C-alpha cells in the first residue's frame, strides 16, 4: 500500500444492512410467498433425492446383472467394490474442480455493480461470501458422500450406522477443506493452473489403475494385497474414525489460511466467480448443461487449425458442424464414455451382462442427444444464419439431421461392435441390428433437434421470479418430452440386447419409427404434416 493509500480511510458502512432492512419490511403475504418458494424447492429436492437413490440402486442392480447370466472376459480382474477407493479420490478431485470453477468466493451481479465500487471495507462482503462457499462445500461433499455410501452399502448388502456417521462427518469436513483450499488458490490467482493439475491427476489415476490392472492380470501378490486391503478398509470404522479426526484438524487449518488470504481476492475475481455461480445454478435448475460445459474460447483457440483441410472441401453448413465438432472438442464426451464402458465391461466382474448393456445404451442415448444438440444448435436455432449462408432454414435443418444421424450411427455401431467383441451381445441377426441402429439414430437426431431448439432463458428472472418453481417445472417437462421419446426409439435395440433370438416385435418397431419420424420432417415437408394429421 502506498503512502497516499494509507491516508485514505475505508468507510465502515456495511451495505448488507440495507438488504436486511428490506427483508424486515416484508409483510405477511410476502413472507409467506418466500416461505412457500423455499418449501417447494425443498420438497422438490427431497422427491428428486428419492428418485436419485432409486436410480442408483437400479444402476447397481443392472451393473451387477442381477438375475441374468454374465460373461467372464479374460481381462476381468476386480470387482466394483475394489474400484471404490478410486471413486473416492475422483469425487474429491471433482468437488475441488467444481469449486475452482465457482470461484469459490464470488458476488452476484447486483453486488458486483453496486457494492464492489464503493470505498468501503470488503471484509464483510468477503466474510459472507466465504461462509456461503464453505457451507456449499460442506453440503456438496456430504451429498457426494451420501451417494457413495449408498453405492457401497448397496454393493456390500449390509448397513453399519457408526461407519456411515463417521464417513459422513469425514465427507462434510473434506468439503470444508477442499473449499477453503479453493479459496486459497483463488487468492493466489492459481485456479486455471490448479484445474490443469487436477486434470493431470485424473490422468495419473487412470494410469495407476491401468498399471494395477496389469499387475493383477499377472497375479503379483503385493498388488493383490494392496487392492484387497484398500477395498476392505473403505467400510471399516478403524479407517473412518482417524480420517474424521485428521480432516477436522486439516479443515480448521485450511479455513484459517483461507480467511487470512481472502483480502487478496480482487473485485474482478469475485465478479467472474459470481457469473460462473449464476451459470452453474441456472444450469442445475434447468437441467441444461449448455451454460456450464460449453467449450471455452481458450480451448477452441488452441484447436484453431484442426479440421482446416477436411472442412475446406465440405459445403458451408457441413463445414460449420465439422469445425464445431473438432475445434469445440465436442466428440470427447462420446469417445470418453465409449472407452469407459469398454474398460468397465472388460475388466470388472459381472458387468459384462445384458442388463448393463441396456444401461449403457440408455446413457448413450441421453449423452448423444445433449452432445449432438450442442453441435447442431446454430443451424437450428439461429434464423440469421439463413441470411449469412444464403440457404433456406429447411436446407440447414436437413444438414443438421444428416449430421446427427451420421454421428449417432458411428457412436452406436462402436458401442454395439465393442460389446459384441466382448461377447455381451450377439450379432446373429445382423440385418436386424443394422436396421435398429438406423432407426435409433433417426430417433437420436429427432431428440437432438428438439433439444437444440430450447431457447436460452434469462436465468436471473427465472430465479428471482415469483413463479420460478412453476417455470422450472415447465422447462423440465419440455425436456422430458424430448428425452422420453428418444429413449422410446431405442426399444428395438433393447429387445435385441435382452432377447437376441426372438427378434423385434412389430409394436416395438412401430413405437420407434413413430418417434423417429420427426427427424424426417425437413425432408418430407407437407407429407410429414399430413402424417401427423
Amino acid at each position, binding site marked *: 500500500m*502506498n503512502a*497516499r*493509500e494509507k491516508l*485514505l480511510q*475505508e*468507510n465502515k*458502512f456495511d*451495505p448488507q444492512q*440495507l*438488504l436486511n*432492512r*428490506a*427483508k424486515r419490511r416484508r409483510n405477511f403475504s410476502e413472507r409467506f410467498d418466500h416461505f412457500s418458494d423455499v418449501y417447494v424447492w425443498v420438497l422438490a429436492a427431497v422427491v428428486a433425492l428419492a428418485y436419485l437413490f432409486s436410480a442408483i440402486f437400479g444402476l447397481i442392480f443392472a451393473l451387477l446383472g442381477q438375475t441374468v447370466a454374465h460373461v467372464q472376459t479374460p481381462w476381468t480382474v476386480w470387482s466394483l467394490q475394489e474400484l471404490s477407493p478410486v471413486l473416492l479420490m475422483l469425487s474429491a478431485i471433482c468437488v475441488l474442480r467444481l469449486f475452482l470453477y465457482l470461484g469459490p468466493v464470488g458476488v*452476484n*451481479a*447486483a453486488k*458486483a*455493480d*453496486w*457494492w*464492489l*465500487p*464503493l*470505498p*468501503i471495507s*470488503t471484509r464483510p462482503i468477503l466474510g459472507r461470501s466465504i461462509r456461503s462457499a464453505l457451507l456449499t462445500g460442506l453440503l456438496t461433499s456430504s451429498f457426494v458422500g451420501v451417494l457413495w455410501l449408498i453405492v457401497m452399502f448397496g454393493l456390500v448388502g449390509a448397513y453399519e450406522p457408526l461407519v456411515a456417521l463417521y464417513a459422513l462427518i469425514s465427507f462434510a469436513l473434506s468439503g470444508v477443506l477442499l473449499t477453503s483450499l479453493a479459496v486459497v488458490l483463488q487468492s493466489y490467482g492459481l485456479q486455471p493452473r490448479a484445474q490443469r493439475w487436477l486434470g493431470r491427476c485424473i490422468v495419473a489415476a487412470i494410469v495407476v489403475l491401468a498399471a494395477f490392472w496389469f499387475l493383477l492380470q499377472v497375479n503379483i501378490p503385493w498388488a493383490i494385497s494392496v487392492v484387497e486391503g484398500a477395498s476392505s478398509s473403505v467400510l471399516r470404522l478403524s479407517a473412518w474414525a482417524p480420517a474424521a479426526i485428521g480432516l477436522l484438524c486439516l479443515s480448521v487449518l485450511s479455513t484459517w489460511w483461507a480467511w487470512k488470504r481472502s483480502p487478496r481476492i*480482487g*473485485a*474482478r475475481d469475485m*465478479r467472474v466467480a459470481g457469473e460462473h455461480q449464476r451459470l452453474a445454478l441456472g444450469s442445475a435448475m434447468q437441467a441444461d448443461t449448455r451454460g456450464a460445459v460449453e467449450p471455452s*474460447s*481458450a480451448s477452441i*483457440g488452441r484447436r484453431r487449425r484442426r479440421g482446416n483441410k477436411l472442412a475446406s472441401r465440405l459445403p458451408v453448413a457441413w463445414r460449420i458442424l465439422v469445425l464445431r465438432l473438432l475445434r469445440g472438442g465436442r466428440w470427447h464426451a462420446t469417445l470418453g464414455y465409449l472407452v469407459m464402458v469398454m474398460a468397465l465391461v472388460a475388466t470388472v466382474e459381472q458387468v459384462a451382462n445384458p442388463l448393463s448393456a441396456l444401461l449403457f445404451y440408455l446413457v448413450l442415448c441421453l449423452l448423444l442427444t445433449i452432445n449432438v444438440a450442442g453441435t447442431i444448435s446454430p443451424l437450428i436455432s439461429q434464423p440469421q444464419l439463413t441470411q449469412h449462408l444464403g440457404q433456406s432454414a429447411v436446407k440447414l435443418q436437413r444438414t443438421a439431421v444428416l449430421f446427427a444421424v451420421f454421428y449417432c450411427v458411428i457412436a452406436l455401431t462402436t458401442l454395439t461392435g465393442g460389446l459384441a467383441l466382448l461377447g455381451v451381445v450377439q450379432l446373429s441377426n445382423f440385418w436386424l441390428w443394422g436396421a435398429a441402429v438406423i432407426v435409433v439414430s433417426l430417433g437420436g437426431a429427432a431428440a437432438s433437434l428438439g433439444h437444440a431448439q430450447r431457447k436460452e432463458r434469462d436465468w*436471473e428472472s427465472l430465479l*428471482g421470479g415469483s413463479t420460478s418453481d412453476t417455470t422450472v417445472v415447465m422447462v423440465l417437462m419440455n425436456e422430458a418430452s424430448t428425452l422420453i421419446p428418444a429413449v422410446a426409439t431405442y426399444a428395438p435395440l433393447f429387445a435385441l440386447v435382452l432377447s437376441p433370438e426372438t427378434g423385434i416385435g412389430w409394436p416395438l418397431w412401430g413405437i420407434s419409427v413413430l418417434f423417429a419420424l420427426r427427424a424426417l420432417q425437413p425432408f418430407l415437408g407437407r407429407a410429414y404434416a399430413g402424417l401427423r394429421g
Partner: protein
Amino acid sequence: MQTGQSTKIVLEARELIIGYQQRVICGPLDLQVSAGDGVGIIGANGSGKSTLVRTILGHLSPVQGTVEFLGLPVNEDSLAFRQHVAVQITDGAFFEELTVAEHLELVARGHNLNSWKQSVSEELEFFELQQVAGLLPSELSSGQRRKVLLAATLIRPAQLMILDEPEQRLDLRIRQKLYDRLAVLRGSGTTLLVVTHDPQMLRHCLNHAFLLNEDQGEALHSEAGAQWLER
C-alpha cells in the same frame, strides 16, 4: 496522444492493446486525459469502445500495454480508485428488494456523504424520479432504470467520471439537463470520459474526441468528432 492542455494527467494509457484473453479487438492505443478534460470515445459498433472502458476500469486485463490513474496502474481494488472514479456502465444489475431511493442511499452512504438524505432527494428531483422513489427496479421502465444508474453515478464525488452511452433511452429534455450538468461538472474540474454516439454531447460538454477506427485510436477535437458522428 495528449488531449489536454493542463499538466495534471488523470488517466494515461500507453501502447494499450485491448481484447478478450488473447483475441485482439483494437490497439495499440495511446491516450492521455488531463484534469478537467472531457473526452468522448467514439467509433462504429464493435470498434471496441466498451472494451476500452472495461479495460480502463480494470474489469478486463489489457492484452498488452498499461493504463494508469493518477500515475499508478489502474487497480479497481485500490481505495483511491474506488473513491475517485465514478462509473456508469451500460446496463447495471439491481437489487430486486431495494427501492430506487435505497439504491441511491447505498451509494451515498457508501461514499460517506454526511447529508446523504438531501443528496438522494436532489438526485431524485433532478432525474424526475420522485414519483417512483419507493418502487422496486422490476416496476420501472428501461428509461427509468437508466436514470437511476446515472443518478447513482452523479450522487457521489469523483475526480474522474466514466460513462458508457449515458444518452441512451433518455428523453430529449432530461438528456439536455444531463449535458448541462456534465458541462458544469467539467468546469469545476471533474474529468469526463464518455462513450457516446451523440454529436450534441460532444459539442455541449466535452472538448476532445478519441476515435476508434480500423483498430487504431485517433485524437480529434470534439467538433471534428461530432462531425464524424454526423457523417
